C-alpha cells in the first residue's frame, strides 16, 4: 500500500458560544502544500470575513478579490488582510454556513507565501447581498515557514458548528 500523501493534520469544531478565532499551531513542516477547508457562520446579521494570518503576525498581508453577488461581478484589493470572503451571518437561514477552500503551496519555503481561496455562501434569498462567491489571491510578504495559522472573525465571532480542517499534501 502506498503511503498517503494527502493527510488530515488537525481539525477544529466550534462549540457553544462561538470563538473569535481558531488557530492551528505547530503545523508540521513535513508536507509540501497545505489545504484548509472551512465551513463558517458569523455572529453578525449580514455576515463578514474570516481573516487569515500566519505565525501570529498580522502584517504584510494583502488580498486581491473577485466576487459575485446577485447580478454583479466586481473586484477589489485588501491592502492589509487576506479575507476568505463573506461568510453567512445570523440573518441567513438557520443551519446555513459559508464554505471555503484555502490552498497554500510551498509553505515551508523562504519565499513569500501565496494563497488561493475559493469561497461561497448561499442563502436561497433573492435579496441583494444575500449570497456571494469569492475568489481570492492572497499574499503574505514574509519569508518565514508557516508554523501556525489563525482564522479570525472580522469584528464579531465564529458561531457554533463552524468547522476547520487542515490537510497536508506531499509531492513525493
Amino acid at each position, binding site marked *: 500500500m502506498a503511503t*498517503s500523501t494527502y493527510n488530515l493534520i488537525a481539525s477544529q469544531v466550534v462549540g457553544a458560544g462561538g470563538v473569535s478565532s481558531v488557530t492551528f499551531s505547530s503545523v508540521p513542516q513535513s508536507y509540501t502544500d497545505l489545504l484548509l477547508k472551512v465551513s463558517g457562520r458569523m455572529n453578525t446579521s449580514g455576515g463578514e470575513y474570516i481573516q487569515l494570518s500566519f505565525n501570529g503576525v498580522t502584517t504584510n498581508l*494583502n488580498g486581491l*478579490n473577485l466576487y459575485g453577488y446577485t447580478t454583479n461581478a466586481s473586484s477589489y*484589493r485588501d491592502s492589509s488582510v487576506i479575507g476568505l470572503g463573506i461568510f453567512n451571518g445570523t440573518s441567513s437561514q438557520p443551519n446555513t454556513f459559508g464554505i471555503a477552500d484555502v490552498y497554500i*503551496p510551498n509553505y515551508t*519555503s523562504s*519565499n513569500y507565501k501565496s494563497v488561493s*481561496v475559493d469561497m461561497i455562501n448561499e442563502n436561497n434569498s433573492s435579496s441583494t447581498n444575500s449570497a456571494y462567491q469569492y475568489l481570492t489571491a492572497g499574499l503574505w510578504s514574509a519569508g518565514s515557514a508557516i508554523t501556525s495559522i489563525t482564522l479570525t472573525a472580522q469584528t464579531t465571532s465564529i458561531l457554533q458548528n463552524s468547522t476547520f480542517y487542515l490537510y497536508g499534501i506531499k*509531492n513525493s
Partner: protein
Amino acid sequence: MASAQTYTPIATQTIGSAVATVTFNSIPQTYTDLVLICNPEGSASGNGIILNVNGDFGSNYSDTMLRANGSAASSVRQTNNSCANISNLSGLPTASFGTYETHFMNYSNSSIYKTILSRGSNADSGGGVDVIVNFWRNTNAITTILVSTTGGNFMTGSMFTLYGIAAA
C-alpha cells in the same frame, strides 16, 4: 484495512536555475483525473503561463477566462488557440510566487475531447485572480504536458507538481 491512496504525486519539478519550459512526460494512464499545482515566479512581467499537451501546438484549443485585477472583473474568450492557459495573458507574477491549480478531467479517456480547468492566484501589484475553462479538441489520452510562459523564464525556486486522482 487502509483504503487505497487516491491523490498521488506523479512527478515534481523544482526549478534550480531559470528555465523557459517544464515538461511532464510518460504520464501514467492509471488515474481518472490529473491535478497540476504550479507555484511559479517569472523573470519578465506581462506574460502568462500556458500549456500544451501531447506536443500539440496546433489551433486545437479554446478557452474562456474570467479574471479580476483588484478594480474590475472581466472575461475574455479565445478560439482556435495554439495553447491552453494556466493563467491570464499577463498573469505570471514576477515579485512573488503565485498559486495555480489546474485540473485535467478524464484525461485518459480516448472517447472525449478534454476539458482543463485552471484557477490562478497572483496577489502581486498588477496581479490578478483567474478562472479559466480550457478545451482541447482531441480524443487522445493525455500523455505529456508542457508548461511554459509566453515570455521570459520560470525563476529559481518555482515548483511544479503533477498529481493523479483515482476514482477507485
